[in-house]
């Protein structure tokens, strides 16, 4: 091969690289491992983690221990999907393109919107995307975010807002929900108002009124929603939202220590040209057969470059397709039953913990799949004591909200049972102080 290239050594291939920048020593890395050694090493590392299967876990706070059916592994494992690139050559990629089109349809159905993109990185960055969209749609430079929105979502919005030239205003929660009057007051000259449904505390927000308050101020209402709640909760598109976003993990992605997951973003058709990310459209080929292509590519970085709606290129397609398979596995009936199960367990948890004497700071709100309980001692101590007995009782809310250092955010999914909740209540009664 070297002969055909016209050099005598491999080293000659690098002759254009100035000597001053050449690395003239081996990389200081551990020696290569054979495949079986790799597996053994990674198994050792994995063994030092405690996954949700190894303890009774009530951890939520943005990503959740929902059951991921085996059929999702099918789409994640097939090499034709797993090892394919972004479908720029549609004739080679009708499988992925059609699957994305089906995913877009599913997201539009869940959210009541007209158009969805092919995914964003996660539930936090899609909030930044929505702000960028809203800035260009309205021409305004402020965004309003409810404090009851996931803290990581708010953090990411603030990180991006600087470069976007946006001011971020937070509206405090009142007793675990957001007050539409407070939103209206804060949203003057705002490009967008972002609220979460159900919110970070697990409470149901007065979402239609929040959207109306945003609209009254001339801001785009943006709902950050839980995909598996949308069988029992109304779609944002039906109560006046312009954009619906969210974290897709609950819909068929493994926890995987935080990723990869997918973010979803859907909007009213009038905003389609400002949407970031890939969009797949239906068309026909030269013989009249239905086919699918990436469309409205002129929004994107590879064409519009510095004026693009986003720089996003690689997104989270495979995880989104996992989400599609999950949603298809559920169907509308399953989605509703799943949502009802979560609500039933959350209500039961409220009841049992109250009966055990614990204060529920937000007892007045209806929970979807998470509740806040005051454990009376520093939450960190309670978590330690509970974990020693094989139960992770929930997220330490004080990490993100001042004044809640003795509170836990307890998540219940369809993987939990009545008996699990009983065990939690009994255990907390022992280790905490009601």
């Amino acid at each position, binding site marked *: 091969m070297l002969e055909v290239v016209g050099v005598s050594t491999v080293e000659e291939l690098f002759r254009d690289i100035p000597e001053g920048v050449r690395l003239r020593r081996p990389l200081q890395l551990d020696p290569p491992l054979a495949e079986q050694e790799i597996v053994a090493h990674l198994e050792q590392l994995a063994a030092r983690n405690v996954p949700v299967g190894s303890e009774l876990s009530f951890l939520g706070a943005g990503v959740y221990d929902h059951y991921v059916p085996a059929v999702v592994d099918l789409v994640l494992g097939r090499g034709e999907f797993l090892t394919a*690139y972004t479908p720029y050559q549609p004739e080679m990629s009708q499988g992925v393109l059609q699957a994305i*089109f089906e995913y877009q349809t599913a997201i539009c159905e869940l959210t009541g919107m007209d158009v969805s993109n092919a995914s964003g990185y996660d*539930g936090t960055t899609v909030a930044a995307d929505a702000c960028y969209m809203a800035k260009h749609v309205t021409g305004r430079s402020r965004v309003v975010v409810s404090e009851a929105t996931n803290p990581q979502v708010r953090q990411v919005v603030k990180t991006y807002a600087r*470069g976007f030239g946006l001011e971020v205003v937070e509206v405090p929660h009142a007793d675990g929900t957001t007050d539409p009057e407070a939103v209206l007051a804060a949203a003057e000259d705002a490009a967008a108002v972002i609220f979460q449904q159900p919110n970070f505390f697990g409470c149901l927000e007065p*979402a239609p009124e929040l959207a109306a308050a945003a609209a009254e101020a001339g801001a785009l209402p943006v709902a950050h929603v839980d995909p598996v709640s949308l069988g029992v909760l109304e779609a944002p598109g039906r109560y006046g939202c312009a954009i619906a976003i969210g974290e897709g993990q609950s819909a068929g992605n493994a926890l995987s220590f935080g990723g990869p997951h997918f973010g979803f973003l859907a909007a009213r058709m009038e905003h*389609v040209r400002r949407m970031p990310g890939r969009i797949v459209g239906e068309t026909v080929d030269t013989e009249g057969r239905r*086919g699918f292509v990436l469309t409205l590519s002129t929004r*994107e970085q590879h064409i519009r470059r510095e004026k693009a709606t986003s720089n996003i290129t690689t997104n989270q397609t495979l995880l989104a397709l996992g989400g599609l398979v999950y949603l298809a*596995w559920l*169907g509308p009936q399953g989605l509703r039953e799943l949502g009802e199960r979560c609500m039933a367990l959350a209500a039961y948890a409220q009841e049992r913990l109250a009966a055990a004497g614990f204060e529920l700071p937000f007892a007045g709100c209806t929970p979807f799949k998470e509740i806040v309980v005051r454990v009376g001692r520093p939450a960190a101590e309670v978590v330690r004591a509970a974990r020693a007995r094989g139960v992770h009782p929930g997220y330490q809310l004080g990490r993100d909200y001042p004044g809640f250092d003795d509170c836990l955010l307890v998540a219940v999914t369809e993987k939990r049972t009545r008996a699990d909740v009983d065990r939690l209540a009994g255990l907390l009664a022992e280790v905490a102080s009601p």
Partner: protein
Amino acid sequence: MKLLFEKSRPGRRAFSLPACDLPVPEVPAGLRRRQPPRLPEISEPELVRHVTELTTRNFGVDTGFYPLGSCTMKHNPRVNERVAALPGFRDLHPLQEPEAAQGALELMWRLQEILAEIVGLDAVSLQPAAGSQGEVTGLMLIRAYFEDRGEAGRRRKVVVPDTAHGTNPASVAMAGYELVGVETDRRGNIDLDDVRAKVDGETAALMLTNPSTLGLFDEGIEEIERIFHGAGALMYYDGANLNAVCGIARPGDMGFDVVHINLHKTFAQPHGGGGPGGGPIAVRDILEPFLPSPQVVRVGDRFELDHDRPRSIGRVRGFTGPFGVFVRSYAYIRAFGPELRDMSEAAVLNANYLLALLRSAYELPYDRLCMHEFVLSARALKRAHGITALDVAKRLMDYGFHPPTIYFPLVVPEALMIEPTETETRETLEAFAEAMHAIAREAAETPELVKEAPHSRPVRRLDEVRAVKELTVRYSFGEQPVAAAP
């Protein structure tokens, strides 16, 4: 092929849920779902067949040669899938107490150390979810650095060459900077005179990938470093082409202050049809205080998340980044160790070999040895026979190959950007070269065959104009479509 929604039949389901006797509370009336979403009602056998049929209409690296330029479509070792699926990783909650996640935190810390060594820099954040996000994050770090020095108001410009991937200018805009373009000279290097004219005290940074999207190593890199650092600016390295230089030249040694690494390119995270990826960034110590929060740190023999970072630019993504991607890339790198150098050498040899086989049939705009990829032009075919790069790409499909990147970089007309990677055999490269030669002959002898290609895929050429005009972006369920944007 039907859509899932078209296969839906009322009452079918794949879902099962354990029995539970708890009462279901009522959703408050104003919040209750009134119409169920029209998700498909489908049984598991139907769902499995649907997904399987979709895969028969898709082509991956597992299927065949996939020489997209700057995408590094190398083989994805299956052992990486096995280890990423270990329950200790797959089912680990990101908010698990650190003492119960030491394996995950150690893996991340080790990956940080490894990446720092590979690129020759001091500190790493694994948070960014993809190269593009790494770019914006890197630019935000640069801004934070200059703000700290009181220079941010003055330094508003980022210099980007005309061969840059479109994400670079898009990232510049998203980070709130002004774009200054520089040209490429006849040798395929950045035009140093143009750079000298445009770099001054208002420059914040250079964004460069080296080797460039032309597959050429910028011979002037040392002078470039002098110019930018001399003007007090910083240098950002787009790591998309890192596959060419692992163990051979390190961006840190070239003078770059911040680098993003595409784990889904050089480090074998599968592309997934469009993601997930990973875009960790590595920085020189002057930028370390500004890295995203939290950082994975080692304290004695324990690993922790450090949230106490007062000068951090903040969080750019949820949790600590796409951990499943880290597992795969970590496992991949552990298989090589210092032999990553052999990987890059093989990638560069394969590219030069393929270039040598093809240059007699296609125009080579820059007559130099290439790195891991090269760009040819189909301009001669267009002039002589009206056959474009697009036509060549479509005809390659009939030969069983995925086409290379076309019409990029923009500085080459009728561009064909080809990156074979190191995991292809000599026979595959020769077969591809033969197909490219055959198409060049067909262009002269039977141009219709090329113009109307592909002939052997599930669909022929698709009407992209119609896709934009009608903008059918979801299944219509037989309803009138929503009017497209004005």
